[in-house]
């Protein structure tokens, strides 16, 4: 009898060498016993190769698929693995096609062992849990894990960890062989005692994640256990949470199903309003725009106003006049700039030689915003959100008309067209840049003139206003601005 000792470290190469020598020496399987270093030799065994006793030369040819299988099977925990491999190899030399016969009982068993080892390797890649043992701020971080594999899988799997965690030191300690990776090199050590690893703060976060990614409405404990057998649980920090999660799941799922839907949170309206302005530009047919404006519900103003007031005037107008918002009269009549301020505008425009009917007249905000007081409706200035929502419509109108110049009446119009409604008194008479580069002439709103109690100031402001309207007329007649109709 020949006895071959395969060492625990580098077993794959040792078995291959021994098997090749035995084959070349024509030693049949029944005359060999195999063991690793922990097993004692039989009473009548003689030490076999590797050794100088029988010098062997030459080579044997076996299918590559067998070598791949053998390289895996040698790591199986079954003490008979070396003998089984050699016995099959002995048959294979005579019948190379055996490798493709999955019905063969012997091969089938080896394939099963191969599968077990591969699965164990896979589980090791998955379930090793490192804890930090070095200084987290150090130049090279250092981690360690305690793992209990079913088969001798540390050595064939260490390469995976070396390829993955190359920029840190790590060690995977097991009751069998341990792998230590330092400064880019792996070494294997035998019989490490179980270490006492320090606590790791990231473990708490990981368990938090594990608890929350689980959906209690889909409890499938068997599916979990078949993939993550209980034998691995003791070295996985998250596993401690499992019994609790399972026990609480039915109640949590029931609670979810029974919980009546709550009222939407108050911020919802604001969020949806914000979202409305994100949608791209209006692109319907031109004659449909007034109807679309009338149906607008983009902001809450539509609930209290009588109607939305779309712009009016020829689509070929070179001048666009943008006022603030409809007032009491405009809201009732459904036409822009027809109330007291509108009438004042018309009078001054006449003086300045500006024909309002040749211009496109509209508002920055299309619905009337007001506060009821007794039997009156008190005008309220639209806020930034309402202006923002309505700018969508204003932009649509600008796209349709493509005016050469826009006249902005008052702060609201200025804000909507230029992004700022501040310092109007300083800015009036200025030409600024509006949407698509169209020039915007800033002026006061005629309602300002109506409200001005001081007669001198009123006269001065009216004079300014008249000049601005004159300038608007002049610009609309003379400005060369690339006007392209879509």
């Amino acid at each position, binding site marked *: 009898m020949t006895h071959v000792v395969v060492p625990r470290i580098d077993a794959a190469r040792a078995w291959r060498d021994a098997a090749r020598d035995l084959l070349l020496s024509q030693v049949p399987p029944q005359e060999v016993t195999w063991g690793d270093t922990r097993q004692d030799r039989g009473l009548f065994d003689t030490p076999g190769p590797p050794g100088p006793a029988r010098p062997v030369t030459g080579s044997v040819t076996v299918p590559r698929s067998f070598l791949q299988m053998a390289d895996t099977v040698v790591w199986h925990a079954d003490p008979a693995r070396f003998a089984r491999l050699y016995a099959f190899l002995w048959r294979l030399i005579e019948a190379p096609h055996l490798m493709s016969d999955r019905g063969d009982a012997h091969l089938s068993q080896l394939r099963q062992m191969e599968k077990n080892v591969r699965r164990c390797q896979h589980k090791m890649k*998955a379930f090793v849990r490192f804890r930090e043992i070095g200084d987290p701020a150090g130049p090279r971080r250092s981690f360690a894990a305690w793992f209990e594999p079913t088969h001798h899988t540390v050595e064939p799997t260490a390469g995976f960890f070396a390829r*993955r965690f190359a*920029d840190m030191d790590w060690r995977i300690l097991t009751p069998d062989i341990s792998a230590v990776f330092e400064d880019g090199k792996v070494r294997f050590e035998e019989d490490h005692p179980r270490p006492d690893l320090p606590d790791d703060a990231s473990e708490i976060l990981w368990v938090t994640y594990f608890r*929350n990614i689980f959906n209690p409405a889909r409890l499938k404990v068997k599916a979990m256990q078949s993939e993550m057998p209980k034998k691995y649980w003791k070295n996985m920090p998250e596993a401690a949470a499992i019994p609790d999660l399972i026990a609480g799941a039915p109640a949590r799922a029931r609670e979810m199903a029974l919980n009546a839907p709550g009222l939407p949170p108050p911020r*919802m309206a604001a969020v949806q309003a914000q979202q409305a*302005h*994100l949608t791209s530009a209006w692109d319907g047919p031109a004659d449909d725009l007034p109807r679309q404006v009338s149906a607008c519900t983009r902001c809450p103003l539509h609930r209290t106003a009588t109607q939305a007031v779309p712009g009016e005037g020829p689509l070929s107008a070179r001048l666009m006049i943008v006022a603030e918002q409809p007032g009491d009269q405009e809201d009732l009549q459904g036409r822009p700039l027809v109330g007291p301020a509108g009438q004042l505008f018309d009078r001054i425009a006449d003086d300045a030689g500006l024909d309002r009917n040749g211009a496109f007249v509209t508002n920055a905000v299309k619905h009337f915003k007001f506060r009821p007081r007794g039997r009156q409706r008190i005008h309220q200035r639209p806020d930034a959100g309402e202006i923002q929502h309505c700018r969508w419509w204003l932009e649509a109108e600008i796209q349709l008309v493509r005016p050469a110049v826009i006249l902005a009446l008052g702060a609201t119009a200025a804000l909507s067209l230029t992004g700022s409604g501040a310092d109007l008194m300083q800015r009036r008479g200025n030409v600024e840049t509006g949407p698509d580069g169209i020039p915007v002439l800033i002026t006061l709103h005629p309602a300002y003139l109506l409200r001005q109690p001081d007669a001198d100031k009123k006269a001065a402001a009216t004079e300014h206003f008249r000049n601005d309207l004159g300038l608007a007329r002049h610009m609309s007649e003379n400005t060369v601005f690339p006007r392209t109709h879509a």
Partner: protein
Amino acid sequence: MSQVIAPWFLRTYTEHMVKKTLEQKLAILSDAAKYDASCASSGSTKRDSRGGKSLGSNEGSGICHAYAPDGRCISLLKILMTNFCIYDCSYCINRVSSNVERARFSVDEVVKLTIEFYRRNYIEGLFLSSGIIRSPDTTMLDMVRIARKLRHEENFRGYIHLKTIPDAAPELIEEAGLLADRLSINVELPTDASVKQHAPEKSPEQIRRAMADVRLRKEVARDRSHTGKRPPRFAPAGQSTQMIIGADAATDTTVLGQSTRLYASYKLKRVYYSAFSPIPDASSRLPLISPPLQREHRLYQADWLLRFYGFDLREITGHHQSGNLDLDIDPKLSWALAHRGLFPVDVNRAPRELLLRVPGFGTKTVGRILSSRRHRSLRYDDLHRMGAGLKKARAFITAGGWSPGALTDSAGLRARFAPPPEQLSLF
């Protein structure tokens, strides 16, 4: 042309955000992410960190680092960047009208969690999704920033899956595809009509255009330039999508028809089916039932038959008048029972296509049968060793030492596989 005038959104964030710890945020934002079924980390380019300058590797096959008690694999750190959302999709726990608690990670927090989890071997990488905040572009930009920081500053070579926002700018999608292994866009529901009904802000056309765009970019990235240089690979692990099952009235025929079109049109790697699961603070527009897990399972089986077993859509659903799959038995068995005239099949002679149609035979078993029978005639016992599920297969095959006799045509054959009729539950 759009300037945002009122920065109310930022205000809302800070008010919410001040007090939450990283752990609290993680709890909220992983809870918010769990309704996404995908956790795959397979099929990307092979790479590793040898040389010691980087961290992480990808070796082709994915690894499930843990399993939750719902039986699902945990392979990636699957989180939302934020669960604030301006959309109101009725099936989603993060919709604007839901009262769920809100949180938002900073870019650095996501990067740190990913790296620290990865170093401890908890995960294969990151699956980042997000509610839509402010605008699709802002949201996508933050996600790209996270991926950029992981790749370029942390030298992370693990897996990154980004959920793309359909309306985001093309430059952002382009960069996302170069940084991530996989991009995905959820079609959400099986029909355009249900998307419009349940996700009013989403546009099915836009979603399809986005998937088409990813496919085109992937294909362009495959072509060498005239100097023979290969451009950087775009989303090497491909794109996937998810459909929610059971939230609307769509039949399995509709669902599978949709996924067949998606596979063909956009070369998707996977279509995930997610049984609609009741969510906390659910919308009243949705059925409050336990998730149709069995239906989800049957759809996956049918999906596999379509992709790997040479089945045609009509063959799978054609013999069910309801348009739905048989819940009691798997779709292959169901097909075989409806086509008993083709059986029994002789395992020693039948062509590959027919062997693939035998219930209980998988693609691997069929491969083993084909290679083994070249050398000898196969017996019934051999099949067991080749991994065949003989409990199902035996009625449909003949082999050395075995003939099913009258079993194939027996009236009680279906009853052998279907679960016993269940008494209606009162609850």
